[in-house]
């Protein structure tokens, strides 16, 4: 039973909500939330420490507080908060290496939870119908957040050999969606006309933001180990999603789709590199392992999560646009 939990990426959309939720959990004595950025959201009863996980201070924090569980939610999925891709990669890759080194040197840590992504499987025409956790990617991700997560998972595997006594749970999430979360995908579906790849209607799979949080929360306080796919049940297709949100689509020939997304990126739609393939081929995760081994079934199906995004986003549509504009201003 964990008593002191350290959450990285605590200024992130999920890190901050996770830290707040864990601090209200009677099973948890203390929550230490760390991030390089100051959190905008309320962290509840969690103690926030503003440190860079790449610095040596982290090891001291781990040892002084006798942390027993580390939740690594600090792998950035977008470059928006740090400015550019190289800074993002530096934080994701070097940050994770330093974090694992610090954890390795701290005997009190008995559990590590890693927030990863289903994008580590890549996307391509020869993918299996459903990816299970042991499947090797047929078209591995070549860049962006997905590539960073592949590298982080590799470091975690190496860490597991050096500290076999630490229980490790790696959660590979489908794209998170919901009324409040802001991702490249949520911005994409907010476009007045949704560009799609001509002749493609991929299967998409989503996970409601609340389900993502409850999976991380469960993983932090439980004692199961292993790698698990987490996604809402079922699938919707891209055309179906466009229909549900009531936006027209613009079919673009495949060779032009990347450049079109590039232009959109300039306009503030923050996609990571793999989205081009995802929007052409889609990807489905087999989620039966999480259900079998720790009984986790997301409350929202893929369709229900998308509906929650569509209907929840009606009230915050103005806010969505404002924040996009604000981010552009930051970049400028």
């Amino acid at each position, binding site marked *: 039973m964990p008593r002191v939990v350290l959450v990285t990426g605590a200024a992130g959309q999920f890190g901050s909500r996770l830290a707040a939720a864990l601090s209200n959990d009677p099973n948890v004595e203390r929550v230490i939330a760390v991030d390089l950025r100051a959190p905008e959201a309320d962290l509840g009863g969690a103690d926030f420490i503003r440190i860079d996980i790449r610095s040596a201070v982290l090891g001291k924090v781990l040892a002084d507080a006798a942390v027993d569980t580390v939740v690594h939610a600090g792998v950035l999925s977008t470059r928006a908060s740090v400015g550019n891709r190289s800074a993002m990669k530096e934080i994701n890759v070097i940050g994770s290496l330093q974090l694992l080194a610090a954890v390795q040197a701290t005997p009190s840590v008995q559990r590590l939870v890693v927030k990863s992504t289903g994008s580590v499987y890549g996307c391509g025409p*020869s993918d299996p119908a459903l990816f299970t956790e042991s499947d090797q990617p047929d078209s591995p991700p070549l860049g962006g957040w997905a590539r960073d997560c592949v590298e982080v998972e590799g470091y975690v595997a190496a860490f597991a050999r050096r500290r076999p006594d630490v229980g490790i749970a790696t959660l590979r999430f489908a794209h998170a969606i919901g009324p409040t979360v802001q991702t490249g995908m949520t911005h994409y579906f907010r476009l007045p006309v949704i560009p799609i790849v001509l002749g*493609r209607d991929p299967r998409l799979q989503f996970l409601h933001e609340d389900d993502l949080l409850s999976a991380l929360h469960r993983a932090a306080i439980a004692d199961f180990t292993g790698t698990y796919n987490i996604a809402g049940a079922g699938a919707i297709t891209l055309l179906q999603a466009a*229909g549900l949100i009531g936006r027209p689509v613009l079919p673009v020939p495949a060779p032009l789709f990347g450049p079109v997304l590039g232009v959109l990126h300039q306009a503030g739609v923050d996609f990571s590199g793999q989205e081009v393939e995802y929007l052409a081929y889609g990807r489905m995760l087999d989620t039966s392992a999480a259900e079998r081994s720790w009984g986790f079934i997301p409350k929202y199906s893929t369709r229900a999560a998308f509906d929650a995004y569509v209907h929840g986003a009606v009230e915050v549509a103005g806010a969505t646009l404002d924040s996009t504009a604000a981010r552009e201003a930051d970049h400028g």
Partner: protein
Amino acid sequence: MADAKIIPLPVPPMPASNDFASFLQRRLAGDYEVDDFGFDAELTERVFLPAFRTLYRDWFRVEVSGAEHLPVDGGALIVANHSGTIAIDALMTQVAVHDSSGRFLRTLGADFVFRMPFLSEVARRGGTTRSAYLRRGNWWACGPRATRVLASPTRSATDCSDSAEADLSQLRCAPGCR
């Protein structure tokens, strides 16, 4: 002119067109279901199967025998021979299985199907998928010979079953062709 008779024109049944309009409206609004493999039962039942059924009945004049052996529930693997390239015989088998048992036949498609735009998506909606296993109580069919013939004509019979030409391969013959 005064003597002109009023000839009543047959009025198309309104419910059907209303039904179709609401069907179209729901499709455009995204209000339908696809399963994990992208199979769209409604579209298959209302669009694909009726289209194939015309060919099935009037062109190929398919006769089915032994349909009573098809199990009514649980997973089953249907292994058929077919002659490759254009899987029209697989589509006819889909009609045969659906019309004689009420169940959907799901087929495994070759890799090239999923590389091609348009075709890949239509195939998925119709129940074709890439390598999957017998699970979830579905039926899967595969025609072992088809793509071998297409991909490597010189070794078509080396590593796949070359059992006797099944009746299904006759499906490609048009009426009158002998």
